[in-house]
C-alpha cells in the first residue's frame, strides 16, 4: 500500500547574511508517518522546520500540502494549515493553569467570561486519548519539565493539527518519560497525524521513526526507511567523510554499545573529597543536600539529572563560587570553603560552565581577553602584575587554531562569535591550562559531531594523564560513553552512584525522578 503524501518541501534555500543555512533541501512527509530529521548542531534541522512553521521566509523553494502549494508567512498561517510545532524551549505562563496555557490565543466558547470547563474537558479527552497524562487544572509552575513538555504537545493537538513538528523533544526527559512520549507519538500517528521528529540522537531515531532524513551543513544527505539504515550508516551520513570514524569516540560507542576502548583504567588517589555538603542560594533556599562523593585520579565521574536539580550549584560549590553551608569540600588538598576561586583556578581546577553566555563570556572584550579569564594573574601571562600581551596573543592564536575558533583575529571583539565558537572558547580556556580537576558542565552543548569528538578525546587524554573529571550532563548517552561512575542528582541530593558495568538507563531514570537506588 502506498501512503499518501501529506507534505512536500522542495528546493528550500535559506541564507543568513553570508551563511547558507539551507541549500536546496527537500523533505517529503507521508501520512501517518513519524519522520526523523537527524543531524548535528548547525545542520539546518531547526531552520528547515522554522521555515515550515512560518518563522523564517525561505529565499527559494516551495511548500505543498496535499499536493497544493501553500504560502506560510507566519505561525498563524501554519496553524491555519494544521501545522503545529513544539519548540525546544517552551513558552508557558507559569502562573496559569494547564487549561489556561493551552487555550491562550484561541477563541473561547465562553467569551468574554473565563469559564473554561468545556475546554478543560476537551483537554482531558485529548490527554486520555493520546496517553499524555496531565491534569488540566494544575498550575503550570507546579509541574515538572516532563509534564510541561506534554502540555506543549497538547497545545498543538488542541488547535487541531495534521502535521506536528517536535524539536528535540527528549532533551529534558528521563528515559521512562521518553518511552511514554514515544508511545503517545504512535497513538497520534494511528489517529492520522504525521510527525516530524527533530533530534541528534541516533538511538531515538532508530526506535521511533518510520523514515529518516539526515541533514548536514544545510544539505540533504540521506532519506531512507528505517529498515534500510543502521546506526553506523547514519553516523557516517551525519559526519561525512572528514571524520576518521575508526578513531571517533562517538562512533565507536555507537557500534559497540556503551563500552569504548578508552574506558577502563586503574584509578589513583582521590583528588576531590566532598563530605556532607549542604548549600543554599542567595534566597536561602537549600540547593544542595548532604552530598558525599569522591573523584579519583584517572576517573571521570558523571552527574546525571534533569536540568535544574542543583547541578549548577554543585559545580559552583566545588569552584568556591557558591558558599558552602555545611560539610567539607577538599580539592587537590585545598579546602574549598577557605580558598578563593582565583586560587582554586591557579591551583589546578578548571571549569566549563553550562551557561556560557552568562557564566563564562566577556562579550565586549576581545577573544584573547576571554581566553585568559581567571588566569590573568597566572605567571604565564603576567609579570609582576603587568600583562604580557605578546605572549597572550601568541597563545590565543595557538588556541584559536587548535580549537578551530572561527574569528578574524585574537583581538576581535568576542561578541562577534557564534554560539558554537563561544563554547570552543570555554573549552580552550579549560583545557589549555594544566589542571588536576576539571568540572565540565554540558561541555558539548551546541557543538557539531566533529567538535564533540574532539572534546571527548581531550577528556580521555586528561584521564590518561591522571587528572580527575566531574562531567555534569543532561545527555545520558554522553555519560554512558565517558564515565567510570555516574551519580544521579535529584533536587540537590545525590540519589545514587552506579559503577561502570551497572549503568542502566531505566535505573538512572528512576533516580532522576527521585526514587532512591534501594527503594
Amino acid at each position, binding site marked *: 500500500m502506498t501512503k499518501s503524501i501529506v507534505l512536500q518541501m522542495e528546493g528550500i534555500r535559506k541564507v543568513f547574511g553570508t551563511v547558507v543555512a539551507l541549500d536546496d533541501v527537500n523533505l517529503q512527509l507521508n501520512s501517518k508517518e513519524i519522520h526523523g530529521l537527524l543531524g548535528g548542531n548547525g545542520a539546518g534541522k531547526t531552520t528547515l522546520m522554522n521555515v515550515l512553521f512560518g518563522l523564517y521566509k525561505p529565499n527559494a523553494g516551495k511548500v505543498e500540502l496535499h499536493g497544493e502549494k501553500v504560502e506560510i508567512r507566519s505561525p498563524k498561517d501554519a496553524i491555519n494549515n494544521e501545522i503545529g510545532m513544539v519548540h525546544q524551549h517552551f513558552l508557558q505562563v507559569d502562573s496559569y493553569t494547564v487549561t489556561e496555557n493551552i487555550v491562550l490565543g484561541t477563541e473561547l466558547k465562553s467569551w468574554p467570561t473565563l469559564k473554561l470547563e468545556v475546554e478543560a474537558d476537551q483537554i482531558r479527552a485529548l490527554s486520555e486519548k493520546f496517553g499524555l497524562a496531565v491534569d488540566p487544572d494544575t498550575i503550570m509552575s507546579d509541574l515538572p519539565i516532563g509534564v510541561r513538555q506534554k502540555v506543549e504537545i497538547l497545545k498543538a493537538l488542541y488547535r487541531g493539527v495534521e502535521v506536528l513538528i517536535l524539536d528535540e523533544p527528549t532533551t529534558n526527559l528521563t528515559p521512562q518519560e521518553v518511552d511514554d512520549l514515544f508511545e503517545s507519538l504512535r497513538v497520534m500517528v494511528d489517529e492520522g497525524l504525521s510527525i516530524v521528529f527533530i533530534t541528534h540522537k541516533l538511538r531515538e531515531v532508530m526506535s521511533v521513526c518510520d523514515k529518516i532524513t539526515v541533514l548536514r551543513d544545510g544539505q540533504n544527505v540521506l532519506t531512507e526507511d528505517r529498515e534500510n539504515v543502521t546506526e553506523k550508516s547514519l553516523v557516517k551520513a551525519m559526519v561525512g567523510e572528514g571524520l576518521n570514524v575508526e578513531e571517533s569516540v562517538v562512533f565507536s560507542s555507537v557500534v559497540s554499545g556503551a563500552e569504548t576502548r578508552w574506558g577502563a583504567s586503574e584509578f589513583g588517589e582521590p583528588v576531590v573529597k566532598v563530605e556532607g555538603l549542604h548549600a543554599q542560594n542567595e534566597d536561602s533556599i537549600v540547593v544542595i543536600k548532604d552530598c558525599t562523593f569522591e573523584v579519583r585520579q584517572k576517573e571521570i565521574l558523571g552527574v546525571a539529572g534533569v536540568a535544574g536539580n542543583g547541578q549548577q550549584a554543585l559545580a*559552583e560549590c566545588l*569552584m*568556591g*563560587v557558591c558558599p558552602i553551608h555545611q560539610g567539607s569540600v577538599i580539592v587537590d588538598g585545598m579546602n574549598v570553603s577557605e580558598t*578563593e*576561586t*582565583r*586560587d*582554586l*583556578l591557579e591551583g589546578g581546577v578548571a*571549569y566549563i*560552565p553550562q551557561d556560557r553566555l*552568562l*557564566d*563564562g*563570556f*566577556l*562579550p*565586549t*572584550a576581545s577573544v584573547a*581577553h576571554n581566553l*585568559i*579569564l*581567571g588566569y*590573568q*594573574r597566572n605567571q604565564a*601571562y*603576567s609579570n609582576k*602584575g*603587568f*600583562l604580557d*600581551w605578546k605572549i597572550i596573543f601568541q597563545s590565543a592564536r595557538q588556541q584559536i587554531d587548535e580549537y578551530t575558533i572561527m574569528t578574524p583575529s585574537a583581538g576581535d571583539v568576542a561578541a562577534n562569535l557564534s554560539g558554537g565558537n563561544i563554547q570552543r572558547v570555554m573549552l580552550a580556556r579549560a583545557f589549555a591550562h594544566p589542571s588536576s580537576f576539571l568540572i565540565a558542565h554540558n561541555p558539548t552543548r551546541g557543538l557539531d559531531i566533529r567538535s564533540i569528538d574532539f572534546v571527548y578525546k581531550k577528556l580521555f587524554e586528561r584521564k590518561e594523564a591522571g587528572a580527575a573529571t566531574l562531567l555534569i550532563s543532561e545527555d545520558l548517552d554522553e555519560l554512558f560513553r565517558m564515565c567510570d561512575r555516574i551519580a544521579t542528582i535529584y533536587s540537590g541530593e545525590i540519589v545514587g552512584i552506579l559503577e561502570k558495568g551497572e549503568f542502566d538507563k531505566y535505573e538512572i531514570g528512576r533516580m532522576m525522578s527521585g526514587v532512591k537506588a534501594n527503594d
Partner: protein
Amino acid sequence: MTDTNISTNSKAKAIAAIVLPYLLAILASFVASGIFIAIMGFNVPKAFATILFTSFRTPNGFIQTLLKFIPLMLQALAFTVPLAAGKFNIGGEGQLIVGGIGATAVGIIFADLPLPILLPLVILAGVIFGGFWAAIPAWLLYRFGINEILTTVMMNFVSFGLIDYVATQIWRDPAAGHPTTIPIGAGGELPMLISSPPLHSGIILAIIVAVGVYIYTNRTSAGYELIATGANPRASKVYGINTRKMFLLSLIIGGGLAGLSGAIEVAGYQHRLIEGLQSNFLLLGLIIGLIAKGDNSAVPFVAFFIAVLEIGASAMQRTMMIPVEMVFIVEALVLLFVLLSDVIRRR
C-alpha cells in the same frame, strides 16, 4: 615584506574604521549647527573658523585650550574608569569640589612648608579627598547595594554646601566679593612651565595620569579584572574576580581622578578656593566619556577636541556675539551622531 605590508594595511583599515565614523559625526554636526547659525543670521564660515582655529592661531589660545583640557580630561576619566567596571560615577563635580577643598586646606594649614614638601601634599590631599567623597557612595553600594548613580549625584549637592561653608566661614577672604578662601602657601602652587602666557605644570600631571590610566586598564592584571567586571560581572565572579571589590575600587579611583582635577585647579590656576570652580566640567566630562564610548585611551583626544570647541566658543561669543550655548549644540550633536553611527553599523 608583503606580510608587513598586509598587516600595516589592515591596521590602517582598522584605525580608519574607528576614526571615520567620528569624522562623519563631526561633519554632520557642523552641518546641522551651521543651519542654526545661518537661521540666527550670522556668518557661518566665520563662526566655524573661530570655533575651530582660535586654539591654534595664538600661543595664548593654545595655552587656554590646554588649561581647559586638564580638568575636562580628568573629569572624563573620573567617569570612564568606573564605567569600565560597569558603574556610573555622576559625582565628578562633587569630587572635584571636595578635592579642591582638601588641597586648599592643606595649602593653607601648612602654608609655610617649602615647595618640595607642600606641593605633593596639596596634590595628594586633592586625590584623597576626592577619593573619599566617592568612597561614600561606593561603600553604600558595596554594603547595601544602593544604586551608585543616585548617591553620586546627591553627593554633588552636599559638596555645594561644604564649599560654601569653607569659603564663607572657615578661610573666608574678606577682600573678595565672591565666596573665596584666602590663598594657599606659595609652596603649594604648581610651578609655571611658561610664564607668559601662563601655563602651569598641571598639564604634565594630567598627561602622566592619562598614560597611567591607559597602562592600568590595558596592561595590568588588575586592570584586566576591572574590564572583565564591566564586561560580565557574573562570569568574572565565577572565574574568581571579586567583582564587588572592583565596583568599590573603580568608583574610588574615579573620585581620586576628579579630586585631582580640583587640586590642579587650586594649585595651578586659582591658588585659592573659589565657589563655582567646578564650572560645567561634569557634564562636559560625561559627554567626552560617552563620545569616547568609554574607551580610556580615546578620552584624552576627545577631551582635547572638546577643549578646542570650548575655547573657540567663548571667542566666538566675544567677537561675533553668537551665544556660547551654540557650542553646546555642536557638542551634543557630535555625541548624538557618534551614537547614531553605532546604530547604523549594527544594522
